């Protein structure tokens, strides 16, 4: 599926001929695919609609950076907007100035509350705190046993009672107990419940009113579909949530629910669960989730790398040189360095949609080293004017760079051809970065 999206976008981008600024029709074509991608990622229909409208407004008339194609530019704007919507990284759990800090875990059945409670307890324990887990799920058979087992593994005490039938009273008792035993963090694992179950939702509000948690965390399954908005909206309006934990991110769901929940509640995503093992809880990185939702992680990093390596001014300078026919060996060397700074060339090619299909493209990295060595063995004058390179100079360069005259001849030939090719670009306005690979 991911492959399919990059391929689709590639074919659209090929059609985008306009340069300079983004035109509405280009944006529409690209955004149509982005819309489908978002819907396939389970982002809620209405959230997608608003999002696309927003991106369109921002993108129309925007300049296309020299190093990007218009399509890439649109995707870049989409990505920035997505990251913006998903919120900043490193949202922390707030601790009460007067311990214990009470954390209440809420969510649907099977979203991963119990496992996540244990994971959080582990995190606090590692920080040197004294957490207490509270088994407040009195509904699901053996939910208490599950938390007790996890508590044992972590060596974190679990407050539980098989006699108490009222979770409100149980949580209240847990707070008293925590104060007595000098626990500084309480994590309350409440029963899973449907957001439309009025009785159980009321019970949750009562617990909240009683124990006044510092953080009420909404635990949501990353695989959740369109209904994520209804669920999150209900929990937020009826209980009031302070943050979100997205679980089961180790699957291959694109996780559009993250965007839906964020958009509907405005609350930060604090952690993501990335596995069944108790240490698998990670901080949330909006950029990673953004590319995952778009289903084009590689494409985005390529855009990013291209932007970093070729900044705009340098690109303009290079363009002037080419147009002024002053493209020298020095420039060639500079370009090669930039390309190589973007990472192994084979990886770069793999990131370009379409190229991923050509599996056995092999690029010899040593070839780059050779070309660089050859250029380094030229005098400054030779680099500026290749016509000086007669037979004896070529022999000297070969000896100096540890290559053969044949190698030197090939590099010079490639350079001359490149120069010819570049000349053909002359006069065409807003041309793109030329192809400068020496093979």
């Amino acid at each position, binding site marked *: 599926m991911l492959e399919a999206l990059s391929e689709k976008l590639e074919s659209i981008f090929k059609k985008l001929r306009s340069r300079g600024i983004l035109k509405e029709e280009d944006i529409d074509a690209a955004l149509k695919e982005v819309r489908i991608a978002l819907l396939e990622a389970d982002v809620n229909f209405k959230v997608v609609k608003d999002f696309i409208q927003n991106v369109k407004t921002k993108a129309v008339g925007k300049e296309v950076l020299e190093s990007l194609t218009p399509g890439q530019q649109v995707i870049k704007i989409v990505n920035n907007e997505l990251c913006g919507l998903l919120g900043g990284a490193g949202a922390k759990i707030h601790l009460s100035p007067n311990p214990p800090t009470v954390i209440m875990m809420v969510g649907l059945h099977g979203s991963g509350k119990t496992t996540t409670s244990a994971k959080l307890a582990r995190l606090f324990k590692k920080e040197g705190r004294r957490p207490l887990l509270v088994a407040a799920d009195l509904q699901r*058979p053996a939910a208490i046993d599950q938390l007790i087992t996890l508590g044992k593994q972590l060596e974190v005490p679990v407050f539980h009672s098989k006699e108490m039938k009222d979770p409100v009273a149980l949580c209240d008792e847990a707070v008293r107990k925590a104060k007595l035993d000098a626990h500084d963090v309480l994590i309350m694992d409440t029963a899973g419940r449907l957001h439309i179950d009025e009785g159980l939702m009321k019970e949750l509000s009562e617990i909240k009113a009683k124990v006044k948690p510092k953080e009420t965390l909404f635990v949501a399954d990353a695989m959740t*579909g*369109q209904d994520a908005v209804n669920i999150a909206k209900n929990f937020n309006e009826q209980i009031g949530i302070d943050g979100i934990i997205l679980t089961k991110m*180790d*699957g291959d769901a694109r996780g559009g629910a993250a965007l839906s929940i964020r958009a509907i509640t405005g609350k930060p995503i604090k952690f993501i669960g990335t596995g069944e093992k108790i240490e698998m809880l990670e901080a949330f990185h909006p950029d990673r989730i953004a590319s995952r939702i778009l289903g084009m992680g590689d494409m985005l990093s390529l855009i990013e790398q291209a932007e970093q390596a070729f900044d705009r001014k340098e690109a303009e300078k290079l363009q002037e040189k080419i147009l002024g026919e002053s493209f020298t060996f020095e420039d060639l060397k500079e370009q090669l360095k930039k390309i190589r700074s973007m990472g192994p060339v084979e990886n770069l090619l793999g990131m370009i949609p379409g190229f991923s299909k050509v599996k056995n493209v092999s690029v010899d990295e040593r070839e780059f080293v050779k070309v660089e060595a050859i250029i380094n063995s030229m005098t400054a004058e030779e680099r500026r004017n290749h016509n000086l390179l007669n037979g004896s100079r070529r022999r000297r360069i070969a000896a100096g760079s540890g290559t053969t005259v044949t190698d030197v001849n090939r590099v010079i030939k490639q350079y001359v051809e490149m120069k010819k090719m570049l000349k053909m670009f002359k006069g065409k306005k807003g041309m793109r970065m030329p192809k400068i690979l020496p093979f």
Partner: protein
Amino acid sequence: MGFLDRLKEGLAKTRKGFIGKVEALFTGRKIDEETLEELEETLITSDIGVKATGEIVEFLRDKAKQGEIQNTENVREFLKQEMMTLLGPSQPLIISGERPFVILTVGVNGVGKTTTIGKLAGRFISEGKSVLLAAGDTFRAAAIEQLEIWSKRTGAQIVKHQSGSDPAAVAFDSLSAARSRNVDVVIIDTAGRLHTKSPLMEELKKVRRVIDKSMPGAPHETLLVVDATTGQNALRQAEIFNSAVGVSGIALTKLDGTAKGGIVFAIKKELGIPIRLIGVGEGIEDLRDFDSKEFVEALFS
């Protein structure tokens, strides 16, 4: 309360939302692009998927062009027809002559496998069948205890090993026990696993192989439990579980929320796997046979 009533009740919220919208769309309006776009929204927000939605909307557009759709009733009939065609005829879970009849239950974490097994056991026992549960989720903390509680509630027998033991061994022992005790139905629980974890999928394949070796032809039903709240990923789950252990039916759980469970249309269409059961509540009696006609009728009535 009759079956249809109970189903309708369970799906009341679904129906209210869905039908309310569709009706509002078509009352006293001509079928134009705007209406079709609104319909698209209704279908997509039901998790039916972009692709299936596109096909349905195309179908209605054609019918509208041909003049076959003019009013609300027409549209409903066409939609019902199209969605029924997608789902195909009902294929409920039938306990055939095999004895014991072996059901293997699989699915990702937190979809409600153990609960579904408990309800299923309750149903068979109320039908006068003897049931043996195999506590094959040896991984998750207290999963065995959870199944034990269900066994006590329903009166089903249980075969269990220690936590952390080999689930294939549990399955093997449960079959031996079922044969010697002359049990009618064996339901094997397995640990929830994400379909992307290949070692865990290999483990599941092994469980299946061992079952087949112990009783050739078994399991007679491999039930994939799918959470109705899940979005498009449910199709991937179905694809991968199917290629690993051959899924013969789907149990769609948590339909009593506001989620529509529309992904079953894609699962049926792409993989041809029938939906056998639906969960519409927490009680033992809230596990129902999936009947495509009644399901679609309940959506539209």
